[in-house]
C-alpha cells in the first residue's frame, strides 16, 4: 500500500515548486513567448490584408485599364468610321462636282464645236458661192467674148427659160 499512500514531503515540495515554476515561467517564458507569437500573428495578418488589398487594387486597376482600353478602342473605331464617312462624302461630292463640271465643259466644247462648224460651213458656203460666181463670171466672160457665142448663149438661155415667143 506504500505505492498509493501519498507522502507528506512529496505533497509539499511539488506543490511549492510547481507554484513557483508556474509564477516564474508565466512572467519570464509564457508571457514573452505568447506575446511574440500573437504579435507575429498580427503582423502576418496585417501583411496578408495588405497583400489582399494590393491584389484588389491591382484588379481594380486592371479593370480600369481594360475599360480605358475598350473606350479608346471604341473611340478609335468611331473616329475611323467618321473619317471613312467623311472621305466617302468628299470623294462622292468631288465625283459629282467633277461630273457636273465635265458635263459642262463637254457641253461647252460641243457648243463651241457646233458654232465653229456652223461658222466654218458658212464660210465654206460663202467661199464656194464666191468661187462659183467667180468661176461663172470667168466662164461667162470667156464665152461672151465672141458675139455669136453671146447670141447663142442668150438664145440658149432664153430657150431654157421657155419664154413663149408669140
Amino acid at each position, binding site marked *: 500500500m*506504500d*505505492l*498509493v*499512500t*501519498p*507522502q*507528506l*514531503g*512529496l*505533497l*509539499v*515540495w*511539488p*506543490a511549492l*515548486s*510547481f507554484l*513557483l*515554476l*508556474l509564477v*516564474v*515561467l*508565466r512572467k*519570464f*517564458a*509564457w*508571457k*514573452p*513567448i*505568447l506575446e*511574440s*507569437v500573437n*504579435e*507575429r500573428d498580427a*503582423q502576418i495578418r496585417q501583411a496578408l490584408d495588405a497583400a489582399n488589398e494590393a491584389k484588389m487594387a491591382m484588379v481594380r486597376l486592371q479593370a480600369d485599364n481594360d475599360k480605358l482600353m475598350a473606350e479608346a478602342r471604341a473611340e478609335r473605331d468611331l473616329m475611323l468610321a467618321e473619317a471613312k464617312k467623311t472621305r466617302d462624302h468628299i470623294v462622292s461630292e468631288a465625283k459629282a462636282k467633277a461630273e457636273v463640271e465635265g458635263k459642262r465643259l463637254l457641253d461647252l466644247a460641243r457648243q463651241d464645236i457646233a458654232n465653229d462648224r456652223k461658222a466654218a460651213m458658212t464660210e465654206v458656203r460663202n467661199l464656194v458661192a464666191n468661187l462659183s460666181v467667180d468661176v461663172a463670171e470667168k466662164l461667162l466672160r470667156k464665152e461672151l467674148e465672141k458675139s455669136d457665142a453671146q447670141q447663142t448663149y442668150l438664145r440658149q438661155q432664153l430657150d431654157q427659160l421657155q419664154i413663149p415667143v408669140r
Partner: protein
Amino acid sequence: MHSLASTPFLIRCSIYLFSLWVLVSWPQGVDANAAADSVDTVVKSGHSEESAEFDASKVILHHIADAHDWHLYDHRDEAGHVHPVSIPLPVILWCGGQWHFMMSSAFEHGHAQPQSGALTFRLDEHGHIQEASGLPVMDLSITKNVASMLLSIVLLLIIFISAARSYARSNNRMPSGLARFLEPIILFIRDDIARPNIGEKRYAQYMPYLLTAFFFIWINNLLGLLPTGANLTGNIAVSLVLAVFTLLITNFSGNKHYWSHIFLPHVPKWLYPIMIPVEVVGIFSKPIALTIRLFANITAGHIIILSLISLIFIFKTLAMAPVSIAFVLFMECLEILVAALQAYVFTLLSALFIGLATAEPEHGVHDAH
C-alpha cells in the same frame, strides 16, 4: 565548437553544481570495475543480503518507490560485501518540536542510526524514517523524487527562458533554436487544447497553467524513463498535487452557471437530495481521475519495463537478456509516446474541466426550457 564560456550562465552554473555534488558525494574506494559486475551483485543481493533468492516484486516496488538517496548501482568489494553506491540527499525532519537536518548518507543505507539533538532516527524496511522512541516524524526531505523534480524545474527554466529570449533577439519575432521546436507544441496547446475547450474569450488566462502543467509532466515523464531516473509523475502524491491545482483553478474560476448546475440542477426538487451529492462528488471525482490516470499510466510503464528486466534474473540465464532487451526497447519506445500522451491527456482534461466551469449558458438551450 564554441567554448564553455559562451554557454548561458544558468547552464554553466547548473553543470558546475551538479558535478560538484556528484564529486563530493562520491563514496570512497569505488573502482572502475565496480560497474561491470553490478548486474551480478543485484542478483546476489536482491536487496536482502541474507537470501540469494531474487524477489522481483520487491525489487520493482523498491525501484518505483521514492528513496532518501539517489541510488546509482551496487558495488562489491574484495571481501564480497555489497556496497550500494548512491548520491546522498538532504534529510529534513520535523520531530519533537524542532527541525533536524542531515544527509541521507548518515543512515548508511539503513545500517546506522544517526542522532540529531537528543533524538535517534532509523530507516524502517520500507525506507521511511522513524524516531527511535516512536515520536511522530514529519518528513520533508529532499528525496530522490524531489531532487529529480528540482532538476526538471531547472531544466524547464533554462529551456523556456532561453526560448523566450530567442524571440526578443529576433527582430521580426521569429523563433530560433530550441524555440523553433517548442513553438509548435505551445501553439498546439493553445489552438487544440485551450481554445476549443475553454473558449476564445477566456482561454488566455489559463494558458500559463496549461503550458506549465504539460511541460512539467512531459519532462518528468521523460526523466523517469532514464536509467536511475526517479518515478516522479508515477508517484501518487505528485499526480495528486497536480490534480489539486486543476481542482483549485477549476473551482475558483467556476461561474454562476457552474455552481447553479451543482446546487440548483435542472431536475425536479425532490431529486435534489440525490443530485446535489452526486454533483459534489463530481467536483472531486474529476481530479481524482486525473491523479489515478497519470499515476497508474506512468507507474504501469515502469513496472512493465522492470518486470521485463527481472526476467533475466528470474530465469538466471544470460540467454534471456536479448529477449528482455528487445521487449524493453519496445516498451521504452512506447513509454516515450506515453510520456507525451499522458502530459497531453492531463492538460486536455484540465482545460476541459476549466472550460466546463467557465462556460456561459447557451441561450438557445435556456430559451427552450
